[in-house]
């Protein structure tokens, strides 16, 4: 019997408590390997945001009908009523951007602890930088004034968070600081990402060309024309194909599997945009329905008149950057620099892929006679046509003329004045409640 007692003492001395307690729960994990972190980043990529859809309601591309199902979610956005919106109104995304930023920050902060192939780690961390930059770009363009070099360091934007901390304040940073962070992040992403182009299906992930395309857009929004041109050229040198609608109208050029796709990440359309709204007459009016091949591809007529968008909630309509945008940015930037001739080339290159041959001839003839100002308008109009219901319009309006918009809804006229303060969306209430610094 004594032996048993001694045996027990020896046994318990041998069992290491830490081993006994080291239970790995099924289905739970603390990411450590690059594979774990890849799944972790995929999780961040999979977070959907409705910003592009809601700003489409806020812009001038749609016509809302008070009788449509679920219209109360959008009415106040549509008529720019931010003061006392209905409780049913959809809230602009805010927390979900910071949720993605949390994922990216965690990957960036842990980059030295991730185990595995160093090439894969660089790729992953580079993507995290780019994805973080993208969230800040979306935030700053929703909730702050458009970039204006002279005032950017005074214009309040949103708080910058680059690491996870508890019990800290989140003061608001300026537009300049946010843009600096974005460009900084994109530079690092550029250094780290090795993949030139992602294959179809994985092209929700950032690649070298996606980072370039993103930089091009950032410079466009900053009115840095030359830099926009340089980056557009750099991106086009990696990927310049355009989908020729004369040859292939099996899918839209904005779809994820189009040859034009550079990054297919952001959700730009929903069930409601496809089924419970019609396209604004203004927008319909600018298309030449007989020669513009996009018209039938993008829109469908409905009984009783009017058109609806064909883009719906299907994930194939995800899009962030595509080659057409590079052509149009290049054209716009050149035009703004007064290089009218050079600006015409990319515009016509795109037009060739968009109009019937006869239509293109007319278009070409019309374009060649335009003066500087007219050409710029033509480029912007082409942008409007190309990116209809693709989440660009509100932001293009903001960064260009901040034009006056009028809408008639339920028999009443609503106006967004030129340079109206409501071109900046108020930060959502739930964010303000939780952060007294906003």
């Amino acid at each position: 019997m004594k032996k048993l007692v001694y045996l027990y003492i020896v046994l318990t001395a041998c069992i290491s408590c830490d081993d006994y307690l080291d239970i790995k729960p099924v289905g739970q994990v603390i990411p450590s390997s690059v594979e774990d972190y890849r799944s972790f980043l995929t999780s961040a990529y999979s977070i959907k945001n409705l910003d592009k859809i809601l700003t489409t309601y806020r812009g001038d591309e749609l016509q809302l009908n008070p009788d449509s199902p679920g219209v109360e979610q959008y009415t106040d956005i549509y008529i720019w009523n931010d003061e006392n919106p209905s409780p049913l109104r959809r809230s602009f995304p805010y927390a979900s951007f910071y949720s993605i930023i949390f994922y990216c920050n965690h990957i960036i902060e842990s980059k030295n602890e991730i185990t595995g192939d160093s090439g894969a780690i660089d790729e992953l961390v580079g993507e995290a930088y780019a994805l973080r930059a993208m969230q800040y770009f979306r935030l700053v363009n929703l909730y702050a004034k458009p970039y204006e070099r002279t005032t950017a360091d005074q214009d309040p934007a949103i708080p910058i968070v680059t690491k996870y901390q508890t019990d800290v304040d989140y003061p608001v940073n300026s537009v300049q600081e946010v843009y600096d962070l974005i460009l900084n992040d994109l530079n690092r992403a550029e250094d780290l990402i090795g993949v030139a182009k992602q294959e179809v299906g994985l092209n929700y992930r950032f690649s070298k060309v996606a980072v370039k395309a993103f930089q091009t857009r950032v410079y466009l929004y900053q009115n840095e024309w030359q830099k926009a041109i340089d980056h557009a050229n750099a991106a086009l040198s990696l990927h310049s194909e355009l989908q020729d609608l004369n040859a292939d109208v099996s899918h839209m050029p904005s779809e994820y599997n189009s040859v034009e796709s550079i990054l297919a990440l952001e959700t730009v359309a929903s069930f409601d945009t496809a089924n419970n709204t019609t396209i604004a007459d203004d927008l319909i009016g600018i298309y030449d329905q007989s020669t513009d091949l996009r018209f039938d591809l993008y829109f469908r007529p409905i009984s009783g008149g009017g058109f609806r968008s064909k883009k719906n909630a299907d994930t194939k309509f995800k899009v962030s950057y595509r080659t057409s945008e590079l052509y149009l940015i290049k054209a716009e930037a050149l035009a703004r620099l007064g290089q009218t001739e050079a600006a015409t080339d990319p515009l016509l290159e795109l037009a060739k892929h968009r109009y019937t041959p006869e239509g293109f001839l007319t278009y070409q003839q019309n374009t060649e006679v335009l003066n500087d100002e007219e050409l710029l308008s033509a480029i912007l109009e082409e942008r409007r046509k190309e990116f209809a219901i693709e989440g660009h319009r509100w932001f293009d309006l903001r960064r260009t003329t901040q034009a006056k918009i009028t809408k008639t809804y339920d028999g009443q006229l609503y106006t967004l004045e030129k340079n109206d303060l409501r071109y900046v969306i108020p930060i959502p209430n739930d964010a303000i409640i939780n952060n007294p610094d906003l």
Partner: protein
Amino acid sequence: MLFIPVFTTAQQKQKMVSGTVVDAAMNMPIPGASVYISSSMVGSKAKEEGILDGAMLGTTTDFDGYFELKIDDTVKSLVVSYMGFKSKTIDVSGSTQNLTIVLEESTQNLNEVLITGYQKIEKRKATSAYSTIDVSEIQQAGVATVDQMLTGQLPGVFVQPTSGAPGAPSKISIRGTATLNGSSDPLWVLDGIPLEGEDIPKDFRDKDNIDNLQSFPVAGLNPEDIESITVLKDAAATSIYGARAANGVIVITSKSGKKGGMRISASANAFITQKPDYSKLNLMNASQKVDFELFLASREDLTYQKNRGEVARILNSYNSYDTFQNNGFSALDSEVQNAINNLRTRNTNWGGELYQMAVNQQYSLSISGGNDQNTYYLSAGIFDEKGSTIGTGQQRYNITLKDNFNLNDDFKVGVSVFASQNKTFSYITGADSYTNPAYYARNANPYLRLTDDQGNYVYDPDLVERSDLNLNYNILEERRNTSHDLVANSVKSILNAAYDLTDDLHFSTQLGLQFDFNRTEKFSDRNSYYTRKYRQRSRYAGPTGDAYYMPEGGIIQNWNTDVFQYNWKTTANYNTTFNNLHELDVMLGTEFRRNKTEEIQTKGFGYNPNTLTTIPITDERALTNSLFDPLNKRFNENAFASFFGTASYTYDRKYTLFSSLRYDGSNLFGVNPKYRYLPIWSVAGSWNVHQESFMQAFAMVSNLKLRASYGIQGNIDKSTSPYVLGIYDNVSILPGVNEEIIQAQGAPNPDLRWEKTKSTNVGLDLGLFNNKLYVTADYYYRKSTDLIGLRAVPLESGYNFINTNWGTVSNRGFELAINTINISNANFKWTSGLNISHNKSIVEDIQIREENFKPSLKGYSANAIFALKTAGLDSNGLPVFWKDGKKVSAVDFYNLEEGTDGSQLTNQEHRDLYSYVGDGAPLFSGGFRNTFQYKQFDLRILSNFILKQTVQAAPSYYPTLARPGTNYSTEILNAGTGNLPALIGANSPGFNTDLVYSWYNSFDAGRTYDDLDIWVKDMSYIRISSIRLSYSVPTKQLDKFNISRLNFNVEGRNLFVFGSDYDGFFDPETYGSLYAQPIPKVISAGFNLTF
């Protein structure tokens, strides 16, 4: 031991010992008492030599308490023992014939030692606050589990039934709540093994918590197998259990065999569960309801669901609604008048349709006995109860086996097995609260018939899904075509071994295993409301209108849960005394525990109960609807390693110092390394004042002891980690590519500290007049700091909420228990036990959530109730409120104006509308127990009481939503008088009525109407929980049947409740809950037989 003489029959002369054993109080013979030679007198060697056989070692007394025993001449003494009496050693060296041996009842027998589950501490050395009760004192017929029996029986232990349903648990809180959102359940320990089981849900006003069947820790134990219950309350008592004991510990000691002859004991009870008094609900009868519907129809402004209800249907079918509204009842055709008046006579007996009187039964049988080498206890029990709500019930089968072997003087082993099957039956309710019978009973129209003249089901025309869709609910059909049951199989087994290394040093080890297999099945056949309702969830727009992807047929849902745990603990005890003054007891130990839970949930659709076949769902829309997931599995494993020690030093039997320390470690995954091992400790002391010489002057003081203790307990939230924890999932971002993802789970918080509870206890044990009056009093103060809770954080962090240390709660209170023997003589004995407790919790610190509509608890009780103070009604019947000492109209109070949409009040202003109106925990709670013994009769009365508990009921009606289609409490008939707000519509007359209407109807997001003080009241009551009369047949008459004891008993449970009125609800305990089943009144009769 080798020197003990070896006995042999040949060598030794023998002598005969004979005598009678009687009890001291009544001078009655004690049959079945054991008379034996203790092995310590003979030595274990003797047995090994096979010289003395068992029969010669001892005997038991016969029915006259008489015994004869042949023993060796050299034996000097015998031991006489009987359960419930103090054992006595008698000298048999001299006279050995016709001895009279008087055994004294050991009323304090159980209290002689404190059983903590780790140690047995002699009472004189105990320093902690605990309460013990012998289960035989509180045993009630027809009560399935021991938790219900504890109601009001132990000071500081607040037990409240959650529902009257069979198998429903009682909510127990010991000395208040030490947590703000964690479980406040105490830890149940069976013979040293902590039991696993589900937490008891916090809020029993929630329908799902009442309707779900769950398996709770003590549900499988038969109270007949339990000897005693000890509740450990202060830190000195509970800290040995570590982190899990923050809410107190309830230690169950099961019955064991006793040395002596075999005893067979059988008991049987039949109990009749009374049909509850449906009229307690104060519902309108058919005539009142018809008048009410006519009243609504006459009011042009009350249009809510105006086409519902039989009266509206009759009026509409004759196109007379407007006629009635404009010109009154007399303007109606006589045909219409008759049709309406006929309704008045159609009173469906809902009380009879939903509730029943049920005859139930309970049996148990036990066999026990033992000798020096072995004691055994075997029992079997059957409990079968049908609930007073038709369709509910519980059946339990128990088998218990306990066997203890003394292998030799130093080595003892014991084994126990507790096996049970516990089936609970209930009704099935879906997402729809209407189908809860208790709720439906309140809402079904009194004139609604359940079957038509041909016996076909009549569906409730007013229980509609949408204005264009009725899913056809009939409670009889539902009961017939659905079932919901839980079968909980449980085996708990315990293996003990104890070894004495030296006289002072003892080792013991205990391995406990618990296996629980729980199977829940919900079945609904194709013809049931549940199935029809479920099917609606699969609706989609098909090419030709609505289509459903759920196949036709029944639905079968199963939840299978396997729980396994082992608990292995080993202790070394060193007990020594030196110089006859110093006593030292030291214990060191280790404990390893591991548990695994595996749960599989399956769902089958298109189920046919005759062929047991299901139909797979092929539509891909079902893939994204978790309601149609065919299988779900969950697995969870935890491990715990603990090291502990206690030391106790006693000087001169007067002064004791005690301290304990325990380190608890648990799964390391994701836990902050700082908190891997939590130290939990306590120190305590006691002073046996009555041992002091100066106390000899006070002869009446038989016992006086002062106690004090202090300790720290802790708990860490394991769901929060300093690391980013992830869970796996799958996602498809772009078409055709499916990838594994890791989602971040919860916000990491490296700064999270553990919750700490510091407890201080001072106590007094006072026995007067030879302990005929025994008082135990305790005062305690517990302060829990760094309580963990969810706090809103800036969204920029990436999260909405984070678990942080955000509150401090203190509990202080006192407990008083007075046990008296009021009268004790040969024929009559009267004993009483009174206990009363008071606990006051205060939330000393808590972080406010900005988004809250209700005020912060800071400075108030953790169960504080806040309400809007009303001051009657204005001339339009709208509520008038108190604001800053002035009466203001609802319009001013809520700051209403045209276009008000809820944003006119900031959340802070909204919070300021409220005033504190009372504590949801009672000011005093307790119980009073009286036992009278007169000759062969025993009468026992148990009661429990609550003084001043603030309760809040769900409103009996909403003024803007008066529905003609459902029944109401008669309170609605008085709407607009007294305090009860008038019924209003959008166009009701009166100044600003429209503002108040749209406020309550649409914009009152904080639902302040529910919080008007008219729904709040203070409750005090005393419930006579049991009156039991039993008669023991005199032993003389039992002689010839070879029976040693027979008694008959009748008992009435829950017959009376006195106190505040609780009109509108079945019971004061469940006041305010619309879903709770009534607590039944039960009459039982039975017998106990021992031979």
